[in-house]
């Protein structure tokens, strides 16, 4: 086995490395899904795993998402630790009943007797020119399902650390992979992978004093870009990368908002009934007296995901974020 030094590495490579290390460390870990074996996955995240660990450890399943997750439940009941790949966000919907009725509830319904350590990897979000049904932001469905953890990395190092933490978790984890960041690069050294991050902690990606951008996954780089652009306007923006939507890190988020006094939540998912509403409510409930302005949301429109030639109008971009920041009642300060 030769390890190729990859520096800088892509997020996809970090995910592959996380799966490989998990398979090597624990014989209970099994990777399964559509095209994950011989092909190495449509995004190549499982590249080489079937060859290295055999088809019983990295299995091409029949094309049926409910069946994939349903059989993973039985495998977990027998002591295995399945890592399931859903090929695309919108292709995961057939598995929703298994996820909501069994995966999320099994520990609770059996009073802790039957935990299900299952990781469900789902590439999500837009920005890759995908045709219909390939670009959904489905996180709100999973967030609204008690019993699941929901995490999403925004950096190469987090992709490795969070996936290792998800696989090691005794609870089911929905692991949302921002597909437009698969090929994003970082100076990450796979020879010394970053320590496994605990699930449930947000991180301040950029410190600032004027306002907080609360975001996650594919919108993190957009917010960092917006923060750079905001300097020209005289705003010093802080960017909080949530990393975990469930559990939610109120502590880190509120500490930031209390420092800055202003907040904008940014995500691709639709605004109505989306994660931003919950986050804005939590921030308002906890930080009301520190707020100089209402918490604003910059979200995708409340429309079915657009065709690829129109998606740039839908996705939250730097300008829309800066427009929201401009509406944070700065005039009241003077």
């Amino acid at each position, binding site marked *: 086995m030769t390890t190729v030094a990859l520096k800088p590495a892509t997020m996809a490579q970090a995910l592959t490395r996380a799966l490989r290390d998990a398979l090597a460390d624990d014989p209970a870990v099994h990777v399964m899904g559509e095209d994950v074996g011989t092909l190495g996955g449509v995004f190549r995240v499982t590249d080489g795993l079937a060859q290295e660990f055999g088809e019983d450890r990295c299995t091409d399943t029949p094309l049926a998402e409910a069946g994939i997750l349903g059989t993973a439940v039985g495998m977990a009941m027998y002591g295995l630790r399945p890592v399931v790949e859903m090929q695309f966000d919108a292709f995961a919907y057939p598995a929703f009943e298994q996820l909501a009725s069994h995966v999320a509830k099994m520990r609770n319904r059996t009073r802790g007797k039957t935990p299900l350590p299952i990781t469900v990897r789902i590439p999500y979000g837009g920005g890759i020119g995908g045709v219909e049904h390939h670009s959904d932001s489905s996180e709100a469905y999973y967030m609204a399902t008690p019993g699941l953890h929901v995490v999403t990395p925004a950096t190469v190092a987090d992709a490795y650390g969070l996936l290792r933490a998800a696989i090691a978790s005794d609870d089911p984890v929905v692991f949302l992979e921002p597909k437009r960041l698969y090929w994003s690069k970082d100076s990450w050294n796979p020879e010394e992978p970053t320590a496994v991050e605990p699930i449930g902690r947000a991180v301040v990606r950029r410190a600032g004093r004027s306002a907080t951008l609360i975001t996650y996954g594919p919108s993190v780089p957009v917010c960092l870009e917006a923060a750079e652009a905001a300097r020209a306007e005289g705003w010093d923006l802080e960017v909080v990368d949530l990393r975990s939507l469930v559990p939610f890190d*109120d502590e880190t988020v509120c500490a930031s908002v209390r420092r800055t006094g202003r907040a904008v939540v940014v995500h691709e998912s639709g605004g109505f009934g989306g994660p931003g509403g919950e986050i804005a409510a939590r921030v308002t409930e906890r930080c009301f007296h520190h707020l100089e302005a209402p918490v604003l949301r910059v979200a995708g429109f409340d429309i079915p995901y657009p065709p690829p030639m129109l998606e740039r109008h839908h996705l939250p971009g730097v300008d829309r974020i800066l427009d929201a920041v401009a509406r944070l009642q700065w005039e009241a300060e003077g």
Partner: protein
Amino acid sequence: MTVMEQRGAYRPSPPPAWQPRTDPAPLLPDAEPYRVLGTEAAAKADPELLGRLYEQLVLGRRYNTQATALTKQGRLAVYPSSTGQEACEVAAALALQDRDWLFPSYRDTLAAVARGVDPVHALTLLRGDWHTGYDPAEHRVAPLSTPLATQLPHAVGLAHAARLKGDDVVALAMVGDGGTSEGDFHEALNFAAVWQAPVVFLVQNNGFAISVPLAKQTAAPSLAHKAVGYGMPGRLVDGNDAAAVHEVLTDAVRHARAGGGPTLVEAVTYRIDAHTNADDATRYRGDAEVEAWRAHDPVLLLERELTGRGLLDEDGVAAVRQSAETMAARLRERMNQDPALDPMDLFAHVYAEPTAQLSEQRELLAAELAAEAEEGTAR
């Protein structure tokens, strides 16, 4: 050798050279449901086994009537009775070895009890003091599944995992005729056949999915025929003939354990009671139909066989009925005790470690309970 290598590579050729992958003929079910009782095959049946089946059937019938009575007394929230289907329930439990797993549906409380689950703990879901009242690993009985057919892929996954670990464990999954229309039924059978997983699927065709008769559920010649499309054998059996169901299931379990892959068994039976105590069966079926099935009652059929062959006399019948009454009395007594409830349990098992959000909500409920208690004391 990997799973895929065991199956060999199937690569379809262009049309002139095309061949079916397997000859479907041996997979086809018989035209008539297989029967033992009242036929020549009965003479070959083990009298000791027939005796055990009879005892379990009588106990099972009494359990059903007792649980139904408990719903009328408000001790159970609901009870989907398996009265008339006891042969399937009992045979499913007895066909398995101790290390095997049973995956019941919500109507299969009796199968769980016949496998050793505490009769009261098996009713936890239906009493409503919790969801699953027993540790699934203790008796290898998965939670009673309310969502239809969703437990079938679990059975396939568990059996597959056991085989990967080198254990000769078989999973038996139970589903009704209505459940065969669900996508999870199809996906489970397909995964099981592709993986050659050691699974037995038992479909209890009891004639109705609540009110909808089989004719509106499927156009297949029989539910057992569905097996052929997945490449597994289908077996049709008289679901009220306990000896026949036990024999067919035991064969299927043996076949699965030996590495022969899954089998689909359709047991033709009848739901004598309404769907649950909350249902009114007179809205969709007539008395004459029910009476015709009462004449083909599973307890009656086996009792007739045993008494006819001198294996059971009046005293024997009375003794079995007495032990059923004792069981029912004990069940009544235990079910008439109010279950211990701790509202804090609501937060205890959602995650391995409660999230900060759940801890906050737990505190909220604890404060409400403390206030309630104080109010109660003040009064």
